[in-house]
């Protein structure tokens, strides 16, 4: 276990911060730029996973396990969220016959 942590610490922490920030931004851009709901879901998952990476890195540097445990919870929650999201999507696809996020705009003003 300690060996693993050693290995994680071989890379400077700022690199982890860089990488996960970048992943997070890619996720945000994906949500903003894509109109296909499924791709938007995937982008949101990317955001969450960027955070997971960050948490694991911090946890390894702080030598405390709470960050890693938190990651488990995040993953479970993300799975639940995806299940709900896909369920909604199937419902909408069956009713509207599209997965375009902008197709539905009856509620406004």
């Amino acid at each position, binding site marked *: 276990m300690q060996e693993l942590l050693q290995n994680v610490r071989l890379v*400077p*922490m*700022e690199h982890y*911060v*860089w990488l996960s*920030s970048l992943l997070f*931004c890619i996720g*945000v*851009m994906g949500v*903003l*730029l894509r109109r*296909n709901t499924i*791709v938007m879901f995937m982008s949101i998952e990317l955001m969450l996973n960027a955070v997971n990476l960050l948490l694991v890195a911090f946890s390894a*540097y*702080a030598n405390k396990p709470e960050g890693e*445990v938190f990651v*488990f919870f995040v*993953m*479970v929650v993300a*799975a*639940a969220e*995806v*299940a709900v999201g*896909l*369920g909604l999507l*199937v419902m909408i696809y069956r009713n509207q*016959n599209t997965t*375009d996020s902008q197709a539905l705009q009856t509620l406004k003003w």
Partner: protein
Amino acid sequence: MENIEYGAIFLQFLVALGFVGVTMTLTHLLGPKRKSDKKLENFECGIETTGNARMPFSIKYFLTAILFVLFDVEVIFMYPWALNFKELGAEGFVKMLVFMGPLLLGFLYIYKKGALKWE
């Protein structure tokens, strides 16, 4: 922890986000808007859509897959427990049973609801 200057990094982060936001707003405001069927088409894969859009796809298959993912993910809580099984001892075992209980109840629920029936 070494005292690294993160300010620059986050400024970069901000600029990146800000750039996206500003460009999107600008293009949204400045760009000409022409709407035609061609433009509204999906172009995700670059392949022309052919055939009937109402492709029959199995809800049952989807449901089972989702349920599998849900129950599968819960297993990650068992890895740390399994690694430390001896240290946690009987108390840990009971706690794991308490965790598995509601999970089983969930399984019972979907079973009773008929979500697993294939026909």
